[in-house]
């Protein structure tokens, strides 16, 4: 089960498993972000390249307009995948 939603503070929370079947769900929310914000991964258990691609597209669009995404609370497995993919060069991660 995957979910993504933006709370009143503007933080976008992702939970569950972000696999290739969830790309459209994530894109719907991320396409609506127009300024810098934080994505909270504390509830996210899993992501693979399809999910990384969606995040990359959102970040590219925002960076091109002087904004950007910050990723927070990645679990160790997801952090390892971000490291292998070189996404530490693309996102601010904390």
């Amino acid at each position, binding site marked *: 089960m995957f979910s993504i939603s933006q709370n009143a503070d503007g933080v976008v929370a992702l939970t569950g498993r972000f*696999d*290739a*079947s969830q790309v459209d769900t994530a894109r719907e929310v991320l396409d609506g972000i127009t300024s810098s914000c934080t994505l909270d991964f504390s509830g996210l258990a*899993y992501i693979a390249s399809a999910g*990384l691609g969606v995040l990359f597209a959102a970040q590219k669009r925002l960076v091109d307009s002087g904004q950007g995404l910050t990723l927070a609370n990645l679990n160790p497995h997801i952090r390892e*995948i971000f490291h292998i*993919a070189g996404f530490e060069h693309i996102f601010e991660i904390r």
Partner: protein
Amino acid sequence: MNRAADGAPPCQRLPAGGLAKMSGARRKFPRRIEALEEVFAFLQDFAAEHGFGERTFYAINLVVEELFTNMVRHNIGGGDHIILGLDHDDEQVHLELVDLDVEPFDPATVADVAVDGGIDSRRPGGLGVYLVKKLVDDVAYDYDAAERRMRISVKKSLEQ
């Protein structure tokens, strides 16, 4: 044998045999992205039965997702199902995906992604295969032209 830390291993040719030699589990899944939920449930059951650790479980989920979705998206005109086989020994888990009635496609031909640059230097495509090659010990590829059958076999070390 190449290890993930040593860099991406080349794909190797498989010997004849394959699934018929595996004593683990195997199952057919519909050729569609929505079948991933069933695929993951199959992996979960196998991992729980054999006591795989979290890191190994994450890696085999990702590897199977990447290879399965590649087959769904790129093997146009393929059969209705993709076969997934699982097995393990004391040191490694063995994964095998078989796609029928398809054109040959060797993942080793996918160029590695340049991961050291910033956002403006990145190009789309190839990240899934790159992650697979970095996470596993061996990727082997075999294509039977007579049967139009593609088989990808992966070995991944079990965490200690």
